[in-house]
């Protein structure tokens, strides 16, 4: 199978996995947590790397997952104990952890073959050549398997806890009153955000992960008010962005990850401007119609006075 196929498949898996959990982040108004997590996992990756001295994905997943949850916990802690606003506490936690990560990497620069840039940009183009060899059998690109696994986990998580997640995203107080273990659901969601982030990370980079987690769900959110439809739409938009982004990148000979991010933005702009129910242009149209109507309503009374 061609390299293009594998790259697109990897991108689509990443997009779908991120869109599923990202939808809940957007609904809970915690979208920036994805940015925070995607930066804050850097020390986790670096430490896992140093301890195992290999680029094995599994320890990196664990390390990153732990730091992802640590970010969530510390943000909550500073928010509650330190009486800081959510965004400030998040900003403090993730930038500090990221700085520590950069320091660790430079400290052991000799031992660590870990490139900060590759973490930020990703190297999705090399995915087809990083094969998973199992019992002398070529199973295909490793990243496809990892992302496929994470996607399966996310699908299971969302479909199994759909009702709980739904109540939790729209009304956490009510969820708690219903006896839903809100804290557990919260940390499980954050755990899957961390896992998706780190799994997608290697191939598409930290910033693109943020784009995939936030932008397709936000686009879908503009288009529907039904949670199920929103989830499906955001997956669809994510996959479309991955496919079109790949061809855009090939066309201009640029970064695939960056192009996918640009495409997610493009789809959002489309929905934002032309959405028939609440789009930007529709609103302008509506306003001018209203103006006309008011003017029309004013006319007869004027006419009466004159006559």
């Amino acid at each position, binding site marked *: 199978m061609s390299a293009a196929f594998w790259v697109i498949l990897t991108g689509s898996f990443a997009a779908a996995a991120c869109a599923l959990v990202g939808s809940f982040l*957007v609904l809970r*108004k*915690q*979208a*920036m947590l*994805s*940015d925070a997590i995607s*930066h804050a996992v850097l020390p986790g990756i670096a430490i896992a790397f140093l301890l195992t001295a290999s680029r094995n994905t599994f320890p990196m997943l664990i390390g990153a997952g732990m730091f992802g949850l640590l970010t969530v916990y510390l943000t909550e802690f500073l928010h509650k*104990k330190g*009486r*800081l*606003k959510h*965004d*400030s*506490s*998040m*900003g*403090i936690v993730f*930038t*500090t952890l990221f*700085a*520590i990560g*950069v*320091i660790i990497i*430079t*400290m052991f*620069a000799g031992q660590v073959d870990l490139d*900060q*840039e590759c973490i*930020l*940009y990703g190297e999705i183009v090399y995915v087809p050549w990083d094969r998973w060899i199992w019992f002398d059998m070529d199973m295909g690109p490793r990243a496809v398997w990892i992302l496929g696994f994470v996607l399966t986990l996310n699908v299971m998580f969302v479909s199994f806890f759909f009702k709980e997640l739904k109540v939790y995203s729209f009304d956490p107080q009510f969820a708690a009153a219903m006896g839903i273990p809100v804290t557990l659901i919260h940390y499980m969601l954050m755990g899957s955000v961390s896992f998706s982030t780190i799994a997608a990370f290697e191939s598409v*980079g930290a*910033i*693109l992960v*943020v*784009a995939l*987690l*936030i*932008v397709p769900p*936000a686009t879908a*959110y*503009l288009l529907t008010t039904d949670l199920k439809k929103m989830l499906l739409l955001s997956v669809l938009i994510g996959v479309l962005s991955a496919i079109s982004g790949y061809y855009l*990148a090939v066309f*201009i*000979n*640029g*970064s695939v*990850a*960056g*192009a*996918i*991010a*640009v495409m*997610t*933005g493009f789809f*959002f702009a489309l929905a*934002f401007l032309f959405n028939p129910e*609440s789009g*930007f242009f529709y*609103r302008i149209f509506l306003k001018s119609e209203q103006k006309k109507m008011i003017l029309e309503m004013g006319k007869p009374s004027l006419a009466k006075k004159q006559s």
Partner: protein
Amino acid sequence: MIDLFFEFFSLADPNVRYVLAGTILLGLSAGSLGCFAVLRERALVGDAVAHAVLPGVCLAFIVAGDKNPYWLLMGSLFFGWLSMLVMDIVIRNSKISPDASIGMVLSVFFGLGVVMLTYIQSTGNVNQSGLDAFLFGNAASMLPEDVYVFGFVSLIVLICIAVAYKELKMVSFDPQFAKSLGYPVKRLEFLIATLLVVTITAGLQAVGVVLMASMLIIPAAAARYWTDTLHVMVITAGVFGALAAVSGSWISYSAPAMPTGPWMVVSAAIIFAASFLFAPKRGEVGQWFMKRKNSRKVNEENVLKTLYHLEEADGNQGRIRTEKDVLKRRNMKESTLRNILKKLEAKKLVTCYQGSPNGYLLTENGRQEAARVVRVHRLWELYLTERLEIKGDHVHDDAESMEHVITPEIEERLAELLGHPVLDPHKSRIPYGNPKPKEG
């Protein structure tokens, strides 16, 4: 190490001078400007803008063909601006929440920048090396002209803050109110946004995209623990930012492999942690001491009150009371009671008579203090029953906590309001000190 220290701080090395001057100016302006962003809950906007200027940097590079700092500045200013505008439009015209808009602008603009960066790289322009220093910053390679740009920008930022301080303060705390007073709120918000974009753009070269956000947030958040006054907070945050800059530069000077930017952030984080823990009043440790002091005061007042009640019960002010007598009336641990009595003795509020068991007697001061607590308690009970029409059997618990909180001024007002009453709702006498209450 010591030699290195003197070498660094004697500023003999011109390179050290440039780096230090540049980073200090950055810390100063980012720290003080960050206060406004943090107070307006826009802390992460800085992060988004820092990422969003990447396309501008690339565009400037494509247009100018080299790393001309002025072109880079112009390009980033434009895109920084554009990103803020897009965020604003999306937040105003759709149901997307602010945080999602910030995240979208951040990632999509940055993605665009990455595409352009890879495009530049693929065209094989030799001058492009170092463009990606933009991402992580490279303070150690700061040149004199960078410092001039920097100094100029910081100066403008600081002057703007100083000149428009009152207006900025208004807009940060209550934009609606500011608007109703006739302040040009839109223009002031424009000013804040511009200053933010300018500072971020200038700072990127030193600390890089990700860490630029932290220089805006962390010093401001740390300064918040030390003061409740905005101008003190702004100055403190500036100083914290500058301190972090000195510390970061020093670490990267003494260990050349170490990057300056990340160490600046870690230094700022340490300053933050210290503020969080040790700032007087708002710090964790300070709060813990306050709590302990408070609970001690409550305990002491309760014991005094109990002794007073005992005197009141048999009308004998000369009779010595034992710990057992107190414990009969007040439920508390024996060891705690002994401690409190010791403290009260040290304060000369009770006299201790050694013996088995020890006996205690209120001193004149102690009696007055106890009478004050009892008086406040009974006045409050009376206020609740008479003015708020709460039933007499419901008021005791409330008065039990209020008696420790009510200040002499409030007590005075209460007594006046109730006409210096003699009896409380349970028909107990309200003890007045000097001056004596009017009869009747």
